């Protein structure tokens, strides 16, 4: 045994940074899971509900009731979740007792990424071999068009979670290029299951919005309401049927409220697109924002209101013309050390 002589305190102190993120042993995680299940049953007892059918939503509601918190950040409030959601998944130790690593690509640094690339390339070569066999036998190559529009590839974060390893943007784009190359070959249907592991279904249709039915007011005239916003302006529009094309904003006619032609054009845009200029009356209220923002807000509100008057196909056309999306552009914040959001201070040589 050696005795430490003439050393500094710096060497003896724990090097906190070199250890990396906290490593949890399997026993620790198991204990946490047992404690969580016990705690769940206790909580159910306390709330007077059945411990067997106590779901995660019930747990969240119970915790929010027992420990009310006024903090803004949801992540900072008290929460009780399953330990697998709280403690991130970690890789087990990659080498045995003699220090020899298990995986043959361990010393590359990104073993799972490179093994994945190797596997994908193997599948590619497989498909090419199959293609060559078919051409030798003079059989026609299968040219079924896969529906590419309904699926998307995994994002970089999802891939990182799958491989339990950090990836760079470059690595990720190379992997996606390889997958696209594989999919582009005619006989790629052989490896469909392998490809399905890396693609996700885009939620079926973007028409999940429910179109409200028409309402009828006292005189029997059909009307519908819509709300719109743009930057800081908020607008509500009520579109009446059997009208003469009059539009009123905050009790004032549009010619007086919007002296600029561009804003009036924007107000009439949805009506002109559907060809119903002289057929509807509109009464709107708008507040906040500037001249152009208010016009954009009213345009969105009137387009949403017109959905109830019009067939589903025309609603789809309106959506493709960009009339039904909320414009997410807002004023960019000013950053410290700069004069504005993008403009830097004048550079002075001395």
């Amino acid at each position, binding site marked *: 045994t050696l005795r430490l002589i003439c050393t500094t305190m710096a060497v003896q102190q724990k090097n906190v940074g070199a250890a990396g993120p906290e490593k949890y042993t399997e026993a620790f995680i198991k204990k946490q899971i047992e404690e969580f299940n016990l705690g769940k049953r206790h909580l159910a007892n306390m709330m007077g509900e059945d411990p067997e059918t106590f779901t995660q939503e019930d747990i969240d509601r119970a915790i929010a009731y027992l420990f009310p918190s006024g903090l803004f950040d949801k992540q900072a409030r008290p929460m009780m979740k399953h330990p697998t959601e709280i403690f991130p998944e970690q890789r087990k130790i990659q080498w045995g007792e003699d220090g020899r690593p298990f995986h043959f690509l361990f010393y590359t640094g990104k073993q799972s990424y490179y093994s994945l690339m190797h596997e994908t390339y193997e599948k590619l070569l497989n498909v090419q071999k199959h293609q060559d066999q078919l051409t030798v036998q003079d059989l026609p190559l299968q040219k079924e068009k896969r529906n590419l529009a309904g699926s998307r590839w995994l994002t970089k974060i999802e891939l990182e979670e799958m491989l339990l390893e950090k990836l760079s943007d470059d690595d990720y784009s190379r992997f996606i290029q390889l997958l696209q190359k594989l999919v582009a070959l005619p006989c790629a249907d052989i490896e469909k299951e392998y490809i399905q592991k890396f693609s996700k279904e885009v939620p079926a249709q973007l028409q999940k919005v429910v179109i409200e039915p028409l309402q009828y007011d006292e005189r029997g005239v059909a009307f519908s309401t819509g709300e719109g916003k743009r930057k800081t302006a908020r607008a509500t529009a009520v579109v009446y049927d059997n009208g003469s094309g009059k539009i009123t904003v905050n009790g004032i006619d549009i010619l007086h409220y919007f002296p600029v032609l561009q804003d009036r054009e924007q107000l009439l845009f949805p009506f002109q697109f559907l060809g119903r200029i002289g057929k509807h009356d509109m009464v709107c209220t708008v507040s906040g924002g500037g001249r152009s923002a208010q016009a*954009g807000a009213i345009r969105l509100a009137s387009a949403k209101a017109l959905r109830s008057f019009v067939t589903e196909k025309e609603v789809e056309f309106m959506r493709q013309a960009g009339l039904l999306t909320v414009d*997410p552009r807002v004023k960019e914040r000013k950053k410290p050390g700069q004069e504005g959001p993008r403009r830097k201070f004048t550079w002075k040589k001395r």
Partner: protein
Amino acid sequence: RIMPVRWSRYDPSYLEPEVNKELYQKPLEKLSEEEREQMELKAIRPIKAAPPTLSSSVFSDPMISKFTNMMMKSGNKVLARSLVSQTLEAIKRKQLEKYHKAPENEKETIECNPYIIFHQALKNCQPIIGISNITKGGKTYQVPVPLTDNRKRFLAMKWLITECRENKHRRTLMPEKLSQELLLAFNNEGPVIKKKHVLHKMAEANRAYAHFRWW
């Protein structure tokens, strides 16, 4: 809020909106498979909101909007738009004067529609080939380079505006100067067309260095 730079507020999967009414009224007799694929893609992907300058009415013209934006100073779109509309009015008035004074046989050749004159004048001003500075071996050479459509349109509009702002008499108003320039450009005369020809001649003169271009 985290706000990364060089980034748009839309997700990259959002597609551009298509405002033209006629494209939507076309029944299923589309041009090719590409259009069909595009339709499918559009049906699933989300679409960006239409900007305030874009509209489906007959009166909105993308070239005129681009020109208005280039004329605009410190965000004063109202002033720029009024200048452009006054220019188009001035063009119409001048052409109508000419029309009423001309003899019968020439009346059909005079073009009165200011939009057509604007488009034709811009087309006449567009250079075909441009020049770019390439430094090789310490010396900078002017190398002839092909231009994209967008760049051609931008150069034509930029030349028109700078020409009107600088080389004219101080007291004349912008619409008058612009209408004069546009009519001259429509007839292939005027200082902007001369500038275009000078650029072409420079490109032809430096033809020897064309192999310096690597793109």
